[in-house]
């Protein structure tokens, strides 16, 4: 498993500003690989966001 480093809010803003990778025209298999890459890259971005250990998921969601 890749270890990810959490970032400060400011560094995190710079990371978001870098923007997503935009795929070119793809075959079906390449499209699937690109979707997996997007998923993994999104997960890495989320993993870098600092979440206090006590934070529970918004599992029973109420606005």
């Amino acid at each position: 498993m890749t270890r990810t480093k959490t970032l400060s809010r400011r560094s995190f803003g710079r990371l978001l500003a870098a923007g997503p990778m935009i795929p070119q025209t793809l075959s079906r298999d390449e499209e699937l690989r690109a979707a997996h890459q997007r998923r993994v890259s999104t997960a890495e971005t989320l993993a870098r966001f600092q979440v206090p250990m006590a934070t529970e998921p918004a599992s029973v969601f109420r606005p």
Partner: protein
Amino acid sequence: MTDDLHYAPISELAGLLKTRKMSSLELTRACLARLEKLGPQYNAVATLMAKPAEKQAKEADDLFKRDRVRSPLQGIPYGAKDLLAAAGIPTTWGAAPYKSQVFDYDSTVVKRLQKTGAVLVAKLAMIELAGGGGYRYPSASLFGPCKNPWNPGHWAGGSSSGSGAAVSAAMVPFAIGSETWGSILTPASYCGITGLRPTYGLVSRYGAMALSWTMDKIGPLCRSAEDCGLVLKEIAGKDSQDPASSGKSFYYPIEYGRPLTELRIGYHPIDFGDRAAESARPAFAAALDVFRKLGPRLVEMALPVMPYREVAGTIIQAEGSSIFEPLIRGPKFDEMPDERQKAGLRAGLEMPARDYLQAMRVRRLVQEELRKVFTRVDLILSPATPSPASGIDEALDRRPTPGEKLAQRGNTDLGAAGNLAGLPAICLPCGFSTTSLPVALQLVGRPFDELTLVTIGREFQKQTDWHRRRPPV
């Protein structure tokens, strides 16, 4: 029937029906004729419901003859996004694998509207499966790309595409759409109409296709804020068949709305400048001036920097792929045309639990941050979409986002943030781009504060006439 009547607001039509200057049957037949003529031109209609609609219209007329008026919607025709079940009528979810799907029950929203006497004239086109996998083209629909009545070379927006186009081209006085992330506000903005996304849990989703259990909302697309209020009043309310139902109702006596001078509206200038399409900036600037003159205090603010889009995308992908797993693993999946959408749904099945949980934990923080924001302001104002409608063949994931490389984000992520926190929003047409396409603003409020949104929307629309403009159909 004259064009003026086709474009009349609900309150005016209700008055004509009540005083029997016009019958519901006449109005219904006029809408059916327009849907039949214009629907195929714009790929806006899924199913026309002529016979049941005429029957419902006659029942409404019978009530009017006996001076019985159940609601301002009695006898008013409407269309429903094709993800809402209506007994005995095809409900395709906009997707080829479900083209023959028929439910034997009504969704709660359809049932509630039926009780008010409103007349369901058509099921309206939508993006397949409400676009949960992340589609690339407007053609990701069983009905083809839904064209924009203001310019058929452009898209009507999604995923409530037909609802947006049908109201804009006056095929129906109002329509019902749904939003998980942008699906009411985008078509409303692109088509130059008013759309209201209710607070999560205010309107029952029973009988509606699920894309994301924790983010799906159902709401109206209308000609005005006032009409949105009238429709929301009838469709909101407790429903034991929807586990997310809040049990709350929406009351719409406009006099209970807060005075505008008491309101603080948060906004960020960059949203109306560098982070908006150049062609839309003059209209956004003029609309901001109208808000200043309405009386509320405009306060400069920006949302805290958080990964709103990543959280929303992860949650929708995980929940959507789980919901559609039997389809994704089955033989009919390939009947859907958009490769990006299918790949997104397939990839969602591989998402580890830790990613979903991380997203839901960050979502909790998003809710907390937004709660703090709403102690400083009552509403947040920004463009509903930073750019006007995209081209009908344009790849949506390759469309440049204005100012995307700027570090300063303003309130660019308001759509994702508002949907994550389940907050209500209203989309108000506010002019046209220099390329002659509609542009609109969004106002986001506190949970269950739809009355303030409708009140301020109504006041804005008293000062402007963008919502009364008619496309060249």
